[in-house]
């Protein structure tokens, strides 16, 4: 019996290409429908409950991974993607395969062969494991900038030009190297969690960019005075509760 399949890709040409290539395998795969975005795909899958989907990872609305997470019914998945990162190797499990664009007929042939050997039993379990894995492998996007609202404008401030953050009762002030100071609604706590490792919380009210620290002067009582490399040579006294932070990040 042929696998009932749905092709999901935002690009018509890409869908057509898969359809065309699959014409050689009509006895194995029967294309029952196609979708041009994640939401549409979700509805079709829940409706038709196909055996197999060809899924593009990057799509408007819902992307491939988000779609799988949302699905209650899990078919066999074959990813199609233009990415050629090593991480994709991990996709080659028993229930999942991937095709790199431009899709080659020979590679598709391998996939079809593999498909015929597939056991459908522990399918769901496998996919869940895969999703966890994919989550880990997903390249952690490095945060590079912070946007602040000034009137109706939004300004992007690159993290690399931020010298330090200073909190008062209400707001957090962003002190940049050359472009002055800005206010942000984000709390120091949020920032501390999200910012890359070169931002170090040194005090209740301060997070400093390690790259702008010129000096650390040890004071009595285990405190440090941190001298920043900005025009004012700002001096920040570290808080005793953040001593561990300092020692860790500055190799003291």
């Amino acid at each position, binding site marked *: 019996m042929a696998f009932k399949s749905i092709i999901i890709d935002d690009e018509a040409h890409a869908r057509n290409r898969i359809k065309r290539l699959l014409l050689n395998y009509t006895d194995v795969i029967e294309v029952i429908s196609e979708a041009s975005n994640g939401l549409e795909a979700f509805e079709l899958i829940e409706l038709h409950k196909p055996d197999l989907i060809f899924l593009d990872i990057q799509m408007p609305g819902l992307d491939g991974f988000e779609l799988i997470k949302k699905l209650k019914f899990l078919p066999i998945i074959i990813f199609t993607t233009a990415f050629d990162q090593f991480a994709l190797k991990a996709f080659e499990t028993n229930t999942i395969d991937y095709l790199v*664009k431009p899709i080659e007929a020979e590679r598709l042939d391998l996939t079809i062969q593999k498909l015929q050997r597939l056991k459908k039993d522990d399918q769901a379990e496998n996919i869940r494991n895969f999703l966890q894995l994919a989550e880990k492998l997903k390249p952690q996007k490095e945060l*590079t*900038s912070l*946007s602040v609202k000034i009137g109706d404008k*939004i300004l992007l401030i690159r993290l690399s030009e931020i010298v330090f953050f200073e909190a008062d009762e209400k707001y957090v002030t962003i002190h940049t190297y050359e472009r002055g100071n800005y206010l942000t609604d984000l709390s120091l706590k949020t920032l501390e969690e999200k910012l890359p490792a070169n931002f170090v919380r040194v005090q209740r009210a301060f997070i400093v960019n390690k790259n702008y620290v010129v000096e650390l002067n040890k004071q009595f009582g285990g405190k440090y005075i941190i001298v920043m490399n900005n025009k004012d040579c700002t001096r920040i006294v570290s808080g005793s509760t953040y001593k561990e932070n300092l020692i860790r990040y500055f190799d003291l």
Partner: protein
Amino acid sequence: MFVGKEPEFVIFLLQVSIFVNYFGPISSMLGLQKKTKMKKLIVLIVFSFFLLNGYNQSKTKANDSLPATNQPIDIGFEGNFTASDLQINRLTAILDKDQVVFTLTYHSQKDRFLAFFTPPDGDILKYINWNGIKKNDTIATFHLAKNDFQSVDNITMRFSTNKKPESDRNFIFLEIYEPTVKKILGISGNKHMIFAKNFPLSPILMIIIAFCLLVPLVLFMGNKANSYSSFIEKWIKNKWLTFNVKVVFFSIAIMLIILLSLFITGHLLKPLPVNVYLYLLLISVFPANLVYLIENVFFKNRKMFWLRQYLNLVFITIGLYIIYKVCNEMTDKMIAREIISLEYVIFCGILVGFVRLINNYISYQKIVLLKEKELEISRLNELKVRSDLNALQSKINPHFLYNALNSIAELCWKDARKTEQMALSLSKLFRYSINKEENDFNPLKNEIEIVSLYLSIEKERLGDNLNYQFDYSKEIENILIPKFTLQPLIENAIKHGIAKNPNGGHIKLTITKMKNQLEIKVYDNGPDFPVNLMSGYGLQSIYDKLDIFYPKRYSIELHNGIEKNITLILKDGF
């Protein structure tokens, strides 16, 4: 002359000023630019030391003060005791009901001492010639009837080591300190006579004085933008000149502060003679220049660190000693002796030398560490800039290429003409991006072509999902802008705007030339820009590129709402 109830206090203040004069400018000269904490700390410690010392001294004096008439009073005087080392002598007077008892206390190192005490009528009351007396011994006690002191300015006091003094002028009492004494003795106004307040120093007052001295100093010594040194550096470019101006400024500032505090506390009785100020200036400038020479001219090499420090120590001491000698000749000897004794010279030289050593050692280590770190960073940066430049020139996503090729692989089965068109567009686009030998700048015309090629390929892929429109006038076509600046803006609008909008999207590019700036706007109808922490957003490459080719003359703004757009403004040069 600055003789007061507690001359030691005044002297101590002047000593402090000398020390500060040395230490302040010298240390701010070479210390690490951003390193002032240590210096301030050391100055504070030394200051406190001096202040405590001065306080203790003046406290003992204060205990000897004269609230009541029948207690001892000090009478200080100045005088040239010929070539002797006789320094300070003190006459203590006890006022009784009907007589005044004067006790002469000997403060000299010499053990021979001769004194004449002459009452108004001219007879010598007592003549002492005493061998083997010790410091602070009571030499003699005079009992004088009060009536004998009708006119004090006729009293002369004569001291001599072994011979009679040549003139009386040197030995006239110039000061009597206690107003009550004046009253009792019935002294009337006299041109030689000055009255000093008996001024016990309370700890609170000491703190106030300390603040008067310390706060401006500490503020001054910073290297912040508003400190005096950076102000001077702004105006004078020659390093050595700057240094000397700093030293002089600093000396004057310190002197003013000290004079002010003397004035406030009532210790400043008369203005100090001009040569005292000159003397202080000389003391500041001369050894400071020695150190400057050693550290900046003769032994620039940081490797000779210890030699340099050693020379510092020696030269400062020698320099101070020379000044001591010169000033002994040049200025009023009394002043020279009191401000700067030989012991003090040596003490100061060694102290300053050591402080300098500690300071230099710390900065030396810091500099070595920093240098190593900086080297590493600059090496990395250079590599990064070089590779960045290459990468920045042509940052068309490979993802885009594969997708386009995938489309071509399909399209060729259906529409040969479209396939040809797409392959040609793709090759043109990549020709722009791969050609690296050309300029870093592109005329806008080329940039617009890159963008339209890019968009035509994307449109072929995305079909009806993508519409776009350009809006610019002919005149801007030849303006040069950094290569591949527009494309990432458009790519960004597709990736974060259109591609997230399942209903398809619209992109508009407008380029307007204002007076002397160029405004590039890319509109899209996708979801709003997030106001939050963001990753990449495709703009990093534009920032990096503009930082290199358009430093500080550009700005990027985002606008949300109906007219959602990203605006790039290039300033100047149009």
